[in-house]
Each structure stands twice: as C-alpha cells, then as structure tokens.
C-alpha cells in the first residue's frame, strides 16, 4: 500500500464493538477492541471458536461494520464511507484468503485470478499478462486453464492467494488458510504467505492451529470479543 502517512499505523481500531442478535439476546462478538497494525507486520489472531477473531478479521477487511468505535485504514476513517468506496478500498488495498478457497467453480484458475482486475477495469491484455506472471510465480502456469475441481487443495489455495494479491494490496487477511488442507500443503501455503509478508505486505492470519500461530512475530489472543494478550502491542 502506498501509505499516505509512512509513519502512521496501517490499521487502527479503537473501542470497536460489534454485537449480533442471537435468539432474542445480543452477543458481543467484539467488545471494545483496540488494535494497531503497522505496514508489513505479521500477526496471528488466535482464540477459541466464537471468540470474535473472525469478526475482527471481517471488520478489518471492511466486510462488516463496527457498531461503535473507530476504524482508521491508512489514516482514513472508514465508518463514514459509503458501500461503493468501501468496495473500492477492498479492491485495491485488501486481499482475502479463505479456509474454503472460494474459487468460482465454472471459471478457470486464470479467470479466477483475473476477477479483481476485471472489477478494477484493467484492460484484457494487461490483465492477462499480470495473471500469467502471478501464476508463474506460484508455479501454477501449467494449471492456468484448469477449473478448481481439477486442482488439488494446495493448488486451489495458491490460486486464491494469487487472486488476493493480484492487485498488490497492502493487507492480506487469511481466515484459517490451512484449515482445509493436509499438513504438507498447509505448510507450503504458510510459507507462501510468509514470503509475501517478506515483500512488505501486512499479513493477518486467523487460526486455530498453535503451530501456525506461533510462527507470527506478533501474536494476538482473542476471548469473548476482547484482546486478552498481544505480545507486540504498542511496539
């Protein structure tokens, strides 16, 4: 991300709450979260099921709006932005990697990777070149014309990572990226994500797996919607 304020935080949450109505009562998925993330940081977010770690990731990814509190993305207050501008921020500054890959089954690997470029209106020739390069970097050039059901789980997740990074975002959000992979493929995917982080992209990984969580330089633990531990807070 071309940070407009190089010294300021990339992500800044303060007093963020998010409640969901569940069966007549309200569940605090996030309850007064303060979090600051700088450009290029590597964070793991861990916690038990229902602790709010996924909601935290969704709020950071602008898929969910906080009920109260402030979220500054690269210095911009996102709370007042209309849907259209939030969509533009997601397109250009945020990449998502999901547990279940979320590739569109009827499109080839190359077409799946090209989706953000098409949304951004990049011309076909330029898009094709970028997709080819991205797939080549991940060793998937011979899989470009394959549909997702013709790919292994690890390959699918690598295609999804190519799609998440094709717009060269400053933030990569991964929600249980290895949750649906065997140990070997999972390790490959984590190495790939860490390699991308090494090139300067901020990486936030939500995971159950302590082995993966421990790899991050900064580890955050979320319980009952609040951050209970953060080994890099204020650093």
């Amino acid at each position, binding site marked *: 991300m071309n940070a407009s304020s190089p010294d300021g935080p990339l992500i800044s949450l303060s007093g963020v709450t998010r409640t969901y109505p569940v069966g007549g009562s309200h569940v605090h998925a996030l309850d007064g979260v303060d979090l600051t993330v700088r450009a290029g940081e590597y964070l793991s977010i861990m916690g038990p099921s229902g602790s709010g770690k996924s909601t935290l990731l969704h709020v950071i990814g602008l898929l969910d709006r906080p009920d109260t509190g402030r979220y500054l993305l690269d210095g911009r207050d996102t709370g007042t932005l209309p849907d259209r501008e939030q969509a533009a921020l*997601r397109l250009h500054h945020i990449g998502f990697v999901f547990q279940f890959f*979320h590739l569109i089954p*009827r499109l080839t690997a190359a077409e799946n990777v090209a989706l953000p470029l098409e949304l951004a209106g990049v011309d076909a020739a330029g898009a094709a070149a970028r997709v080819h390069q991205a797939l080549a970097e991940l060793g998937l050039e011979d899989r470009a014309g394959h549909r997702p059901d013709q790919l292994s789980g690890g390959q699918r997740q690598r295609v999804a990572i190519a799609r998440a990074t094709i717009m060269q975002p400053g933030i990569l959000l991964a929600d249980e990226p290895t949750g649906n992979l065997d140990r070997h493929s999972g390790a490959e995917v984590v190495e790939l994500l860490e390699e991308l982080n090494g090139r300067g992209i901020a990486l936030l990984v939500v995971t159950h797996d302590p082995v993966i969580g421990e790899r991050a330089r900064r580890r955050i633990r979320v319980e009952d919607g609040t951050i209970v531990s953060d080994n890099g807070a204020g650093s």
Partner: protein
Amino acid sequence: MKTRRQARFALRAVTASRLRSALMLLALAIGVAAVVVLTALGEGARRYVGGEFSALGTNLVIVLPGATETTGGPPPIMGVTPRDLTVQDAIALSHSRAVERVAPVAVGIAPVSRGSREREVMVLGTTHDMLSVRHLTMAAGRFLPPGDPERGDPVAVVGDTIRRELFAGKNPVGEWVRLGDRRFRVIGLLADTGRSMGTDLDQVVVIPVSQAQALFGTPGLFRVILQARGRDRVEMAKADAMRIIAERHEGEADVTVITQDAILATFDRIFTALTATVGGIAAISLIVAGILVMNVMLVAVAQRTPEVGLLKALGATPRRVRLLFLWEAALLSLAGAACGLALGYLGVAAIGQFYPGFPVAVPPWAAGAAVAVSGTAGLAFGVWPASRAARLDPVASLERR
C-alpha cells in the same frame, strides 16, 4: 468490469447451469412462439377473408331490400313490410352512368330431380351479367344467355356437386332436369370453385331470374348486385342506387346499399382486433415465463450466494453485482426470444405446408412485440433477484457453503 466482460461472465454463469437455463429458455421460447403462431393465424384469417371478398368480384355495390336505419317513435303495430326489390328496379339501376353491370339475384330452395334421383338445392335466379360480376368460371357449356331479364328460357347452369349426384359424374350439358314442376335444359357446368363466402357454388342451380320468380311465385329479389365502372365510381354508384330506388319507390329509399369495400373494411377491423386479442392472450404466457425467469434467477442467487459474498469481498460494488445478474436475465431473455421466434416461424411454415390455401403470415409488429415483451418480462422479473443479490451481506454469504 467492461460491458463485454460482464456479458461474458454472465454467459459463463448461464451456461454453467444448463438445465435451469434450458428450462427458462423453453418457457420464454414457448411464450414467444405462441404469440408468433397465434397472431399469424389471426393475420391469415384476415387475409383469407380479404381474399375471398376480392374473389367475389371487384367494385361491387350490393342493394338489399328494406332500410336498416332506425326510426323514432313507437314500433308500428302491423310492422313495416318494405316494398319488394324487383327486376324492374334492377333494370332502372343499370341506367346509372356509374354502373357497369347489374345482376339481380333471387334465391330459393327447391327440389331438383333427374329420373329417380332427387335432392334439395339452392336455386339462384339471375342474369347473364352475373358471370362477370362474380368472376364465375365455366367448366363446360355456357352461362345464362344475355337478353331481356324479364324473359328467360327454361335453362339451367349447375354446380359440380349436382353433376356428381344427379348425373353420376357425366357431362350434364344438354340433359334435362326437373326443378319443382318445371323442366330445365342444362346448358352449362360451373367450375369447381369450392366455398365462396358461405355459398357453396358447387351445390347451386342457376336459372334465369324470371324463371326463378315464377318457380317461387314472388316478384321480390333477394338482392341486386351492381358493379361500378371503377373504384372511384363506387360511392357514386351507391348514391345513384339510393336516388333511383327512391324515385321508383314513391320517394322512399327503402333499400340498404352496402359496398364491398365497407364490408371488407369491417371484416378487416374485426380480424385485426381478433389478432390483437389472441396475441394479447399469448402474451400472458410471456408474463408467466417472466415469473419463471424470476423464480430461476432467485434460485440462481440463492445457489451462488457464496459467490456473491466473494465478489463483494474482492471489491465488487452492489451495483456491479446487480448488473451481473441482470446481464444473466437479459441474455436468457434474448436467447429465449430468438428460440421462440425460430420456433414460431417454423410452426407458421408448417401450417403453411399443411394448409396451402390458408394465407398464414406473421404480422411484422407481432414478432417485434413478442421479442420486446419477452425481453421486458425477463429483465423486469430479473430486477428483484438481482437486487436481492446486491443487498446480500458479504460475511453471511461467504459462510454459506
């Protein structure tokens, strides 16, 4: 996303769910084909009637006894009997400069017999001019001879059915038949023309009008058919007819004069209205098809909810998501309309093959209207599902698997 890419993306989505798309296509195609075929039948009926009327003759003016105009006041107790329209009236009508030919017509039913064979037939009493006025053609012999309409020899011209039933298919010219208690010599055989405006000319016996009046014992004519000297003289002939009859009937024009054009125009209006009605009824099937489009699109949105969530996560605006689904509806509607047109024209061609005499034809407005209605229905019923997709919450959508 550029328009072409949106269309391609939608096309991929449409072709990915083949059965669903095929069903939707079928529904729209049947609707469009129904509009095309039904309006083509209506148009064919209109042309058929128009053709029949033209075959009756050209620039005809028909004089009927009795005025149809309504008069005020209470109805007369005894009822008003109009004066008969007579052969003398017909002769007087021929004096108009606008009139080229006059054919008086007397009609009745009488038994016709030859030897032991007998049947009831329609007897048409008329004159020589009837041949050209009604565009009749002869298969053998000749038509009634020209001459004084008030005198006529006992001669008859018969239709083809009479030939088959009374003469066992042999040439009847020169033979004798009995009509009621009179004997007539057959001098001609009408060509097999089939039905013409409800009168089956194959089943009639044509005799001189004076003989018919004697046979039925009445001087009154069924009608007088005038042929004007040209299309521009039709109105003049009509006015002259009213004037001449009024002069002859003590100042009262107690006849009804109708022109062929007026009848044709009336039928034309009736059949055009009929065609529009039938087309409208068929269009209802298009609305039904449109509702099916909506149903199918709603299923598509439900099935592809995670995809919508993904597109939103990738940065698609609600507007873009809506457009993608509208593109799908539009593509399906267009394809359905195209299939329907092909199906409809095929059906019309098939009808034309099986009934070569029926001038079935698709009115140009109907094809256009069918496509417009199906396109509008497809799009209109696609709006709601597309908006639903656009409003989906990305987090909840992504979690649906």
